[in-house]
C-alpha cells in the first residue's frame, strides 16, 4: 500500500461560542464600564457634597466675587491697578507678576545653567571644581531658605532711602529697591525701533543666505559681525542722527522714598536671584549628563578633523546632547514656575499671595479660588511643556 500521506479533509470542530458572561471581550468591557461609572459617581459625589456643605454653613459660592471691588492695594503691578478695581483684575495682576518672574527666571537660569554645566566639564581644574562647589551647594539647600537668604541677608543691610548708594546720579540703591530712570520714548523713537526690527529680520536673512552659500561653495561669511552691525550699529546711529529721541524721568527723593522713574523691588530681585541660581544648579547637572551621553567617539572624530574645543562643543556635541537634555529641562522649567509661588514668603505680590492669599481671606471662597489658581499653574505647565515638546520633536534623531 502506498503511504497514506494524502492530506485528508480535516474538519476542525469550532469551539462553541461561550455565553456572554464568560466571553473575555464582554467581561473586560463590563469591568471597564463599572470602574468608569464608579469614577464619575465619586466625582459627582465630591462636587455635590462640597456644594451642600457650603450651603449648609451659609458660605458664599460661585464666581460672582470676581466682579466685586477689591478695596486693597498691590505693591507692584505691571498692568494698571487701583483699589477700585475688581477681584478679577487682582487675578490678572497676580498672574502677570508670576509669569513675569517665571519667564525672566527661566531665561536666566538656562543661560547660567548651561554655562556652569559646561564649566563643570572643563579640563581646567579650578573652573571645574568651582562649578562643582556651586552645584553641590545650591542643589542641596531648600529653595525657601535661599529666598530668605537673598532677601534678609543680602538686601536688608542696604541703607535707607535717605542714605542711598548712588550711581551716576540716576541709579539709587536702597533697601526699598533699585530706583532707575524711566525711558519715555518720543515719536521719533518709533523710527529707531523700526530700524532695529528691520535689522533683526535682515540678520536672519543674511545668516540663511550665508548657510546656503557655504553648503554650495564652502565659502564662509562673517555672519555674526555683520548681524551685529546690522542690528546694533544701524539702530544706534539712527538714534543719534535723530537727536536722541528718548526722554528720561529721573527718580527724585521726596519725603520717604524716591518718586518718579521705575523701581525694582528687593522682593522681586531676591526671588529672581534665588529661583535662578537654584534652578541653574539643576540645569547644570542635566547639561552635564547630556554632554556625557554623547559618545566620546564624536569628540575624538571632531578633534581629529581639526576643530578646536569650542567648535567641537558648539557644532558637534551640544546638538546631539540636546536630545538627552530636553525632557529633564522641561521639568526644571515647570519646577521654576511652580516654585515662584514661594514669593508669598517675602511679600512679592504673585498669584498665590494676592489671589490665593488676600482675596481668599477677604471673600472666604476658598474652593473657587484654589481651583482657579491650580488651573493657572496647570495651564502654565502645559504651555511650557507644549513648547518644549514641539522643539524636542524637531531636533529628535529619526532612527532608520
Amino acid at each position: 500500500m502506498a503511504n497514506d500521506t494524502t492530506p485528508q479533509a480535516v474538519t476542525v470542530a469550532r469551539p462553541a461560542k461561550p455565553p456572554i458572561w464568560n466571553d473575555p471581550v464582554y467581561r473586560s468591557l463590563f469591568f471597564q464600564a463599572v470602574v468608569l461609572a464608579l469614577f464619575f459617581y465619586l466625582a459627582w459625589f465630591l462636587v455635590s457634597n462640597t456644594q451642600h456643605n457650603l450651603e449648609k454653613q451659609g458660605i458664599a459660592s460661585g464666581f460672582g466675587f470676581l466682579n466685586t471691588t477689591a478695596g486693597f492695594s498691590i505693591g507692584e503691578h505691571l498692568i494698571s491697578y487701583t483699589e477700585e478695581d475688581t477681584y478679577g483684575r487682582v487675578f490678572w495682576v497676580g498672574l502677570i507678576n508670576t509669569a513675569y518672574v517665571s519667564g525672566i527666571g527661566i531665561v536666566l537660569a538656562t543661560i547660567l545653567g548651561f554655562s556652569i554645566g559646561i564649566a563643570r566639564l572643563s579640563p581646567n581644574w579650578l573652573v571645574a571644581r568651582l562649578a562643582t562647589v556651586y552645584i553641590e551647594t545650591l542643589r542641596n539647600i531648600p529653595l525657601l531658605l535661599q529666598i530668605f537668604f537673598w532677601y534678609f541677608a543680602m538686601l536688608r543691610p542696604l541703607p535707607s532711602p535717605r542714605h542711598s548708594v548712588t550711581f551716576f546720579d540716576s541709579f539709587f540703591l536702597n533697601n526699598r529697591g533699585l530706583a532707575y530712570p524711566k525711558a519715555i520714548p518720543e515719536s521719533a523713537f518709533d523710527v529707531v525701533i523700526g530700524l532695529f526690527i528691520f535689522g533683526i529680520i535682515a540678520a536672519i536673512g543674511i545668516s540663511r543666505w550665508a548657510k546656503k552659500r557655504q553648503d554650495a561653495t564652502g565659502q564662509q561669511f562673517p555672519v555674526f559681525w555683520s548681524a551685529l552691525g546690522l542690528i546694533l550699529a544701524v539702530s544706534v546711529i539712527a538714534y543719534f542722527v535723530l537727536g536722541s529721541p528718548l526722554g528720561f524721568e529721573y527718580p527724585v527723593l521726596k519725603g520717604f522714598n524716591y518718586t518718579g522713574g521705575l523701581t525694582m523691588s528687593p522682593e522681586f530681585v531676591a526671588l529672581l536671584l534665588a529661583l535662578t541660581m537654584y534652578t541653574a544648579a539643576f540645569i547644570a547637572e542635566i547639561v552635564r549628563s547630556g554632554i556625557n551621553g554623547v559618545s566620546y567617539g564624536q569628540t575624538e572624530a571632531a578633534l581629529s578633523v581639526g576643530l578646536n574645543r569650542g567648535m567641537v562643543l558648539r557644532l558637534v556635541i551640544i546638538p546631539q546632547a540636546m536630545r538627552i537634555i530636553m525632557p529633564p529641562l522641561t521639568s526644571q522649567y515647570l519646577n521654576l514656575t511652580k516654585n515662584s509661588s514661594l514669593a508669598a514668603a517675602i511679600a512679592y505680590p504673585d498669584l498665590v499671595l494676592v489671589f490665593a492669599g488676600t482675596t481668599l481671606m477677604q471673600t472666604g471662597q476658598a474652593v473657587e479660588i484654589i481651583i482657579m489658581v491650580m488651573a493657572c499653574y496647570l495651564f502654565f505647565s502645559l504651555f511650557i511643556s507644549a513648547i518644549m515638546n514641539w522643539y524636542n520633536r524637531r531636533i529628535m534623531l529619526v532612527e532608520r
Partner: protein
Amino acid sequence: MKLVKTIAASAVLASMGLTGATAGTLQDVQKKGFVQCGVSQGTPGFSNPDASGNWAGFDVDVCRAVAAAIFGDANKVKYTPLSSKERFTALQSGEVDMLSRTTTWTLVRDTALGLNFAGVNYYDGQGFLVRKDLGVKTAMELGGASVCVAIGTTTELNMADFFRKHKLKYNPVVFEKADEVLAAYEGGRCDVYTTDRSSIAAQRTKLKNPKDHMVLPETISKEPLGPVVRHGDDQWLDLVKWSLYAMIDAEENNVTSKNVDSLKATSTDPKIRRLLGMEGDMGKNLGVSPDWAYNIIKQVGNYGESYEKYMGTKTPLGLARGNNALWENGGLQYGMPIR
C-alpha cells in the same frame, strides 16, 4: 465579581458616612472632652505661649471660660495657632471649634464667610506705628510711605481706604505672619507698621528698642474684636456668647474670682443668685451644668480681672480700659441680662 461587590459596597457606606447628619458642636466637644481653640501665633497680652508652652492671654481666657462652662475645668482646652490667612478656613472646615484671635466683626465675615460673631471682647481701632526719627507727627504726612501689614486682615483694607480718601500714595508690603511683618518694619523695609492699636502695643514689646517708636494719634477705623463660631449651630453660638456675657455681668455685679465662693454661700442679691446658679435654669437652657458661670468666674475671673492681668496699666502693654470699660463707667462693655 467579588472585587466589584466590595468596591460598590464601600462606596455606598462611604457616601452614607459622609453625608450623615452632623451632631452639634457642643455634643462633639463634650464627647471629645476638650475645646479646640484657634488662637494667634503669639500676640502678647491676647494669646501668647509662655516659656513652658502654656497659652495665656485675654483671648485665651474666652476659650477657657467656655471650657469652664462645659466641663467645670478651664484647662480642658487645646490651642491651635493660626495665621491671619488660615484662621477662617480652619474654623469653616471644623479644624477648630471657635476662634479667639483678635478677629474684627465685619459684615462680609458674618455673611459670606459663613461665620457668627459671639460678641465683642475688645473694642479697638487701627493705628500706625512709626520711628520717632522720621519726624512724622500725624498720619496725614504719610504720603509716599511704605507700609508693612499682615495679609488678609481688615487692616489691609482700612489702610487702602484711608490713603484713598486722603489721596495719598503709599506702598504696601504684605507678609503672611505677624512676626515677619514686625521684622520687616524693624529692619527698615517699611516706614510704617499698621494694625489694631492693641496689637501695636503688644507687638511693640517685641521690638528691640520700643522707645524709638511712636504711635501716631489717628485711629483710622473701628475694630470690634471678638470670638467667632460657625454658621448653623445656634446652641454653640449661645454658649460662647453667654460665657463672655457672664464675665462682663460678673464685673458689673462686683463678683470676682476671690469673693465668688463667699458670695455663693451668703448672697441674697437675686441677680447674683441667678448668675451663680442658685436660682433659675440658666445652665440647663444653655445645655450645661447650673454652676457654669460660677466655674467661669472662679477659674478664669471676671472681665475686669482678665483685662487687668494681661493688658492693663500694670502690664508691659499698658492699655487703659478706655472704650472697654463698663458702660456704667463710660465705656462700651454691656452685659446682657442673665435671666
